[in-house]
């Protein structure tokens, strides 16, 4: 676990001031490819601080698309934490880690992403039922791409 540091607090204060946010309801900080999410009771806004602008645009686009489709809550979407190639099963001869409609527990492996010769297991952030697997087997994924949606 990484600790909250001074930068985090400064970033949150900055966003709070800039966006004139009051009544903050929740704050989420994610450390792998830095991400800060603040929601207030007045207006829900997701502010990302990212280093790569093109990827930011991408993820915003996908955010919009998924919002238009069916107002899926952000917490129900598993997003890619890295750039790489997604695989739905450990190897071609074995069944996929998870299937649509399957009940999974927090921490279960959902899929793996190969990046820079390492296979990174993407664990389920929550317990729940899988509504949709968006990513295809051996599909290249960008940072922030939607992978799996929970019900």
């Amino acid at each position, binding site marked *: 676990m*990484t600790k909250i540091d001074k930068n985090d607090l400064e970033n949150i204060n900055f966003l709070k001031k800039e966006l004139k946010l009051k009544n903050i309801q929740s704050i989420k900080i994610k*450390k*792998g*490819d830095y991400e800060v999410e603040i929601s207030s009771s007045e207006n829900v806004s997701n502010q990302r601080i990212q*280093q*790569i602008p093109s990827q930011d645009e991408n993820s915003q686009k996908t955010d919009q698309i998924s919002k238009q489709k069916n107002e899926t809550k952000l917490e129900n979407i598993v997003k890619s*934490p*890295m*750039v*790489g*190639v997604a695989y739905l099963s450990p*190897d071609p001869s074995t069944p996929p880690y998870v299937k649509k409609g399957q009940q999974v527990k927090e921490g279960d492996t959902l899929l793996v992403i190969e*990046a*820079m*010769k*390492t296979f*990174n297991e993407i664990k389920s952030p929550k317990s729940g039922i899988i509504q949709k697997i968006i990513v295809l087997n051996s599909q290249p994924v960008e940072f922030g791409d939607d992978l799996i949606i929970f019900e």
Partner: protein
Amino acid sequence: MFKKILIANRGEIALRILRACKELNIKTVAIHSEADESAIHVKMADESICVGPASAQLSYLNIPAIVTAATLTNADAIHPGYGFLSESKRFAEIIEEHKIKFIGPTSNHIGIMGDKIKARRIMRDNGVPIVPGLHDVNDFNQVNKFIDEIGLPVIIKAASGGGGKGMRIVKKINELENALGSAKIEAKKSFNNDILYFEKFLSTPKHIEIQILADAHGNVLVLGERDCSIQRKHQKLIEECPSLCLEENERQEIGELCKKAMKSMGYEGVGTLEFLYDNKKFYFMEMNTRLQVEHPITEMVTQIDLVKEQIFAALGEKITKNQDDILIKGHAIECRINAEHPETFIPSPGNIKRYYQPGGLGIRVDSSIYQGCSVPPYYDSLIAKLITYADNREDSIKKMKRALEEYIIVGIDTNIQLHQKIIQSGEFISGNYDINFMSRFD
């Protein structure tokens, strides 16, 4: 002398080989994947050929495409670098069949050392100490006898193993059967060879390796050792030379044994014998029949250009130096700079927006990245090797601290901060660290 060498690799090592070729007036052919079109090794080579799409399997591991590239460009030799096809017996065989010189040992020697059980036998027969082990895991009487003798834990390894695949540590006797079963399946899947063997599990050893150089005339030189105990998940992070823990007589003794084994095999080129070192004893693990990532630290303390020596050995030239001419002078350290988050270790490919490389006396940076370049997600995360050299270890660490502070890489995550923490930790400074260092380090 060779007229033209094809470099069957990418990244910093392709550049490293290219530099040696230029100094020897040898023309170079770079190969690259579609993802590496703007890579520095491609720009600096005399000729370049695209050998396939981004996936390494279809480009840098694509033997027919690489052999075709070598034939089309009339290359008289191929340097495989490290990784990719550098330890592929089949690749070396095919190159030999095409009358192109493979810069490295013969395909036969690659094959022998690729089989860990054969390698252990050769070393044992030459008096090189090996980890106590058992080669037949199917005879349960023998297995029980072995475990009774050396005690638990034991480690199961795959004969064709590497990268921790097919490896299991057995701490309790009731874990044995399951561990054997799963190791066998994993080994079969990974290497298409399910032969396993047992070794005594050493809990707190150092990783020390011996660099050798041999010619086609039976001359073998030992070029000192490297301490590579700072590892994470079997991946080396920091290496140094010489090792603080070795006495001069120990160094000489193990060096002589390595030399004897290499002579008995008729080995040619550079190679590295990897050992575990525990309680003042060496235990042979495996031999790498190629140039190593960490070869620059040996170059710094010996002032010998290992890539040039590889080329001379491949030409059949005689080594002119004697063992007495080899002096290990000063102290060198290498930090491997990886494109990964310093805490989560999540790989971080992407564009390098700003880049500033450290310099000054005793600083060497072997890297292929530059400002504006893109680090592709398809290959290894190693993007630079930062090497420092000074008269003694203390000054070499000071230089490393200074150089890491100077190094600026913006746009992707790197493990520079992690290196800063490691080299300033008391355990590292004491030199008294073992291969578990990173698991304790937080």
